[in-house]
């Protein structure tokens, strides 16, 4: 049994040298890297970066889109006992600067010119910068900035080969193998240190959920610094011997996934929701026959899926209808999404609304929730095969203990729990309880079947003025199921009733407006349209229909702009930063509770490299019948 990721690599290279490890679409053709070839490249790069000054224990930063070179760089760092650190490819230049400075990385590997531009101002702090997309880049080459391939050559000298072997011999299971940025919805993200043993423990714990046995095709398109993608693309690739496929370009992901049709698919909640919303709105716009077939077929499939969840019998007639609906509706849809071969899929990052869950289940895609953080190698609680109630995130995984603290916080203990934050002792101390459990900062409870139900961030679970407990995230997920709502921020802590800020789904709402001949010019003009307000009011009413009266959203306003990571309103993985949103839109929040009908906003915004302000008048509307004025004032 291999103890480190590097030993897994050596094991595969020895037992199945010619089997494919990685594939990437380059110049229009899928190129394969075999295990033997991968190991060879990793060791060459390791030798090269050693020569250039990477020492064991130092950091090697990686910045770029997913590609084999990303993985090779990471494994090369691990081979010599250095710590790889991924930076999100869409990070702003000053974020990149912060990470370079904070991690004191010896060098950085970047994908292309766009990323190199972010690094060049910090060249004096780096020993080397490697670029893997080399075409057209010769004007940059110098002593420090080098083409990736030249460093592979550098590593082939006898001296460097020996240096690599010597360094590799020092790598232990408790050597730090990865610096994973935390999601940072609250502040500047921290770097969680994960050792080989912890990453492998995480992969072991999740094995049954993922149901991977080796040789499966996997598609790697989510940002690699994100721990979920790390576990799938790098760790599970090594522990289970999957074949990882990389897209040709960020904008060809949807096309490339159709060519790959992976066996296993990972997507954050956001993407599943987007896909479901897209299918629904496209079918709304389809011609009569298609629409009718879809309505009927999807109805049948959804009914079957719901009965299965409730463990009710399906019955002969319905079963027959499903046998017809499946090839007519489910198969074509799945092929379009690149999910034709995929039976098992996973979601993580944020809780997924039950409706989306059922939607994909009806299409025959078995989505399993995986709950975890960077600090727990993305695996602590998950659905197991055949036991996937959509409203929960599943049961604690093997060799993992999970408990609920007094205040409702979820706490975890297990082999996959991280070693501490990089250069941040204070935060490390704070995040562990006295008896050594990791505090997730999330609130939840176990239901009668031993399944964990997530409520949201502990800090955000609150109570209305009358003491009713409510979890904003829980409500937000319900609202986001509407195809016209991309993001919702639900407010109510210490308030007399629940309100919401709505971000429209631009594409679906625009299509809706166009079909009805509603005139609009920009996104902003769409957000102030009275008919759009009526649409959203109706969507909110339907989403809250089954909720207790006091938890229903009573008032809302549509945000005049899309939430954007450059304005720090959402993270790079599209999680809303509540604090920022609440402070940026404070005037709007106040207006939701003081009875005003409209409010003027002046927002500083950033676009491209510039800054500006956005002036907007935002309307406030009630859901259903207008609110009783007396209650509003209360």
């Amino acid at each position, binding site marked *: 049994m291999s103890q480190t990721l590097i030993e897994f690599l050596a094991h595969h290279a020895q037992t199945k040298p010619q089997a494919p490890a990685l594939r990437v679409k*380059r*110049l*229009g*053709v899928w190129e394969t890297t075999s295990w033997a070839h991968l190991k060879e490249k990793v060791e060459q790069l390791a030798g090269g970066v050693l020569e250039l000054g990477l020492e064991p224990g130092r950091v090697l930063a990686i910045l770029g889109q997913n590609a084999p070179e990303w993985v090779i760089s990471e494994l090369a760092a691990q081979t010599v006992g250095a710590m790889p650190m991924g930076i999100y490819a869409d990070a702003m230049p000053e974020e990149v600067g912060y990470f370079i400075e904070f991690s004191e990385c010896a060098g950085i590997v970047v994908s292309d010119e766009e990323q190199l531009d972010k690094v060049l101002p910090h060249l004096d702090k780096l020993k080397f910068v490697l670029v893997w997309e080399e075409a*057209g880049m*010769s004007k940059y080459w110098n002593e420090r900035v080098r083409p990736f391939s030249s460093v592979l050559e550098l590593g082939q000298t006898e001296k460097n080969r020996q240096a690599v072997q010597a360094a590799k011999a020092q790598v232990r299971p408790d050597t730090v193998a990865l610096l994973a940025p935390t999601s940072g919805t609250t502040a500047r993200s921290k770097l969680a240190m994960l050792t080989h043993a912890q990453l492998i423990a995480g992969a072991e714990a999740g094995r049954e959920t993922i149901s991977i046995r080796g040789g499966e095709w996997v598609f790697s398109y989510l940002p690699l610094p994100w721990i979920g993608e790390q576990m799938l693309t790098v760790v599970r690739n090594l522990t289970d011997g999957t074949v990882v496929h990389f897209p040709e370009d960020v904008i060809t992901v949807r*096309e490339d996934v159709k060519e790959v049709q992976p066996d296993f698919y990972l997507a954050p909640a956001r993407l599943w929701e987007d896909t479901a919303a897209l299918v629904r709105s496209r079918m709304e716009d389809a011609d009569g026959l298609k629409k009718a077939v879809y309505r009927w077929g999807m109805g049948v499939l959804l009914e079957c899926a719901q009965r299965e969840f409730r463990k009710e019998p399906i019955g002969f007639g319905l079963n027959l209808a499903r046998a017809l609906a499946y090839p007519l509706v489910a198969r074509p849809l799945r092929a379009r999404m690149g999910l034709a071969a995929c039976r098992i899929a996973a979601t993580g990052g944020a809780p997924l609304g039950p409706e989306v869950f059922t939607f994909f289940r009806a299409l025959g895609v078995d989505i399993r929730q995986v709950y975890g953080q960077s600090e727990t190698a993305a695996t602590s609680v998950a659905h197991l095969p055949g036991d996937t109630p959509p409203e929960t995130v599943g049961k604690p995984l093997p060799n993992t203990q999970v408990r609920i603290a007094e205040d409702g916080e979820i706490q975890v203990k297990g082999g996959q729990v991280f070693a501490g934050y990089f250069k941040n002792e204070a935060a490390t101390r704070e995040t562990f309880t006295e008896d050594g459990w990791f505090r997730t900062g999330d609130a939840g409870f176990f239901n009668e079947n031993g399944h964990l139900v997530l409520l949201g961030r502990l800090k955000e679970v609150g109570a209305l003025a009358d003491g009713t407990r409510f979890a904003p995230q829980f409500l937000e997920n319900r609202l986001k199921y509407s195809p016209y709502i991309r993001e919702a921020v639900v407010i109510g802590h210490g308030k007399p009733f629940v309100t919401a800020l709505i971000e429209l789904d631009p594409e679906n709402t625009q299509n809706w407006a166009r079909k009805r001949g509603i005139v609009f010019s920009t996104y902003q003009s769409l957000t102030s349209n009275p008919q759009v307000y009526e649409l959203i009011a109706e969507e909110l009413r339907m989403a809250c229909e089954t909720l207790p009266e006091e938890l229903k959203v009573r008032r809302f306003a549509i945000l005049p702009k899309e939430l954007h990571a450059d304005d720090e309103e959402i993270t790079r993985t599209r999680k809303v930063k509540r604090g920022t949103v609440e402070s940026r839109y404070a005037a709007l929040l106040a207006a939701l509770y003081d009875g005003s009908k409209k409010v003027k906003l002046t927002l500083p915004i950033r676009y491209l490299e510039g800054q500006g302000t956005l002036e907007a008048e935002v309307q406030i509307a009630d859901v259903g019948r207008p609110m009783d004025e007396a209650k509003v004032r209360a």
Partner: protein
Amino acid sequence: MSKVLLEAHDLHLSFRGVKALVGVSFSVSEGDLFAVIGPNGAGKTSLLNVLSGLYKPQQGRVVFLGEDLAGQSPQQRVRKGLGRTFQNLELFRGMTVLDNVKLGAELAVGGYTDLMPKAQIEWKIRHHAEEVLDYLHLSPYRHVPAGALPYGLQKRVEVARALAGRPKLLLLDEPMAGLSLEEKQDLARFLLDARREWGVTLVLVEHDLKAVLELSTGVLVMSYGEVLYQGAPAGVRENPRVAEAYLGRSA
């Protein structure tokens, strides 16, 4: 001084009474980025048409790589390494981007001959075309019909097709016209990269004076078929005749 690649000697061209070119002479050295500028109707495109062989000048000679090109068809000139792009797009709109670029690539590979297996030639052409697509960041659009792309990308495809032939010298007719600032910057970057890494000499007709002065190594200013100025880009602004032609007499 690097070697002279293209020379024009005393070119005269007229359409009936209209004089398009009046005694135009200049030379372009290897590795130059040579810009031809001038107001509308100055004869810039006529000059490119003469160089690429679409028009036959009444008088004067075009010498490329030391060889007089008189009597050679545009196709022959292209095969000698004298490529060009057009001001108004001349792409095959119904063909995919890849097919358009493969047409160009055929030149560099040497086309279909009987000596090599077809599949092997096809593979070489495809590979060559893909390299250029990658270089110009066009790979994501390879299977899109060229006519379905936005204008800025079509311009880039046109440049890609010309570059795929690996010309020694590329004549570009207003490659930046109608592009946004960002598209212009991208295209300028690609052209400079191609010049540096593939050693392509560029002759460029351009309206955008700022782009020309920033990029070029040599400038030819024309007005009504005559040469007003020839030399380093820095001298253009100071030249009184250029100022007059561009800005009017009072300036």
